[in-house]
């Protein structure tokens, strides 16, 4: 049943996934001394050669990252074009995250009076929607909502979360996070309509994502003027730590306190044991990717697509880290940012 509808897409995704850079590739890349070497190595892996061919020396980190991004976008788009419901809806949900980023970009641009081309340049191609350029033209929130966003899937998040008063400049970041929260909750709701196995797997993944979201907001809001009550409103209404863990997170004031909260949860025990504050973030990402890895081990469910997109993101950020490290001659810190989960089981 699943195979008849989504078999091809799944096979495609797995095919793409098997061509992800492996741990060995990263090790090889880590030995490169210049970006030209990186380029040569990536070209030798057949998938990248198409994208890297046009890169002229001197190679800049952005070039390589852009190539990787183009490749991901292409993979994703191919997948999306093949998809039929419910996979197509599922994939659309995956784009909403990028859409939120794009919308925020446009909002910021609007507040600064930028031109729409300039903004579209910066937008992620996965999360483009038709009315995005017109965000810039709209003057205030009501108009924005009425004219621009009402047709987009984001409308239902926005209506609940934002009032006109919120659109002063401080709140752009807040809106982003509120939207993200709403998005996660909606995604969760959508997943419960899918088949049982997908639902189960997605619940795990989204729970983790919700926890990450909450923890990151907590850690990043230290030392800012974000009040605790506002912080609470940014937490999702589900997650492994929901509800009492979130309540406790809301009162945290230092990273150590956050760790104390995390220690009580078996899943996060290891993460909390790390010393550095930033290791928490890294630990969470590793956790996420590991569970994605587990998801990919199973077949016949849609969660694999989610996992796939997460691995894409990870590859992008790994490549970015790697190229920047090489460009800035900071290879000693290479291990700090790279997260290699061996994709080939």
């Amino acid at each position: 049943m699943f195979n008849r509808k989504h078999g091809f897409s799944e096979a495609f995704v797995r095919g793409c996934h098997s061509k992800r850079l492996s741990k060995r590739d990263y090790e090889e890349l880590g030995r490169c001394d210049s970006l030209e070497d990186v380029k040569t190595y990536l070209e030798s892996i057949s998938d990248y050669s198409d994208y890297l061919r046009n890169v002229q020396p001197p190679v800049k980190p952005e070039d390589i990252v852009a190539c990787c991004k183009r490749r991901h976008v292409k993979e994703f788009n191919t997948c999306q074009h093949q998809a039929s419901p419910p996979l197509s809806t599922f994939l659309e949900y995956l784009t909403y995250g990028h859409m939120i980023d794009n919308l925020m970009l446009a909002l910021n641009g609007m507040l600064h009076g930028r031109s729409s081309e300039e903004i579209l340049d910066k937008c992620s191609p996965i999360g483009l929607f038709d009315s995005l350029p017109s965000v810039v033209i709209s003057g205030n929130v009501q108009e924005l909502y009425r004219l621009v966003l009402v047709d987009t899937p984001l409308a239902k998040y926005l209506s609940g979360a934002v009032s006109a008063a919120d659109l002063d400049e401080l709140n752009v970041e807040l809106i982003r996070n509120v939207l993200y929260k709403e998005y996660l909750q909606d995604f969760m709701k959508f997943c419960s309509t899918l088949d049982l196995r997908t639902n189960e797997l997605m619940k795990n993944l989204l729970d983790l994502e919700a926890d990450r979201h909450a923890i990151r907001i907590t850690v990043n809001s230290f030392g800012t003027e974000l009040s605790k009550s506002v912080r609470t409103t940014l937490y999702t209404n589900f997650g492994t730590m929901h509800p009492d863990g979130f309540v406790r997170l809301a009162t945290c004031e230092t990273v150590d306190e956050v760790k104390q909260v995390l220690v009580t949860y078996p899943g996060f025990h290891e993460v909390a044991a790390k010393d550095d504050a930033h290791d928490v973030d890294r630990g969470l990402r590793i956790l996420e990717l590991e569970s994605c890895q587990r998801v990919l081990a199973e077949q016949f469910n849609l969660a694999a697509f989610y996992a796939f997109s997460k691995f894409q993101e990870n590859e992008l950020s790994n490549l970015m880290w790697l190229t920047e490290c090489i460009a800035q001659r900071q290879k000693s810190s290479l291990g700090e940012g790279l997260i290699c989960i061996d994709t080939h089981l």
Partner: protein
Amino acid sequence: MSNQNRLQVAPTVTQLAVIKLRLQGAVRGHALLKKKADALTLRHRAVLKAIVERKTTLGEIMREAHFSWTRARHAGGESVKHAVLDGVERAKVRVRASEENVAGVKIPKFFLRDTGAEQRRMELAGLGRGGARVREARGAFEKAMTLLSELASLQTAFVTLDEAIRTTNRRVNALENYVTPRLQNTVKYILGELDELEREEFFRLKKVQAKKKRDVEQAEREVAEIVADDEALRIASEELRAYDDVVRGEGGRGAGGNLIETEQDEDLLF
């Protein structure tokens, strides 16, 4: 040569005083400028040392700062970059320039001034992802910026001082090798001329004196001559008379008679 290397002045005593005054000024100026050059050089060396020191640390710190920004981008994804870029309203720090006086040379000095612009939107940049890293990067860049402004002050100071030292040294050398010798030569020349004049004057006086003496002598001689002439005339006339007397026969006095004392002479009776 002496004509080339001295001022064209009339060799008078007044000029001599003026030139001497100038020479004194030049010497004093030379000493002062020399001192100034020394002070500047001292400062110059100190600045150079500081620059070298700053530059070595700057490389490190800038690398650190850039890398911390990379960390922020890594943690926050690309969106955090735009959030940060759009989050800037007003510059948080501005560079202000003031002046410092080193031995009369005005050296521009830069320092950072916190404008106190509230970065309200920046506060929350990367709230969902990488906010802490962004703040770290901000701290790192602030540190780098302080160092940069210091380096900028030092660098401009270096250039300004260099220029000033060169000018001062040029002046010192000019005073030492050109102005002072010239003035000295002039003084020498004037003194020489004055001496010459004096000698000339003396000689002239002597000449005049000699001439006067000669004149006096001449006059005396003339007077004597006149007197002698008169005498001769008188003698002649006396003799004439005597001859007359003789002619008239009244005296057998021959020529051996006292011709001079004719008056008292008794007539000679033959």
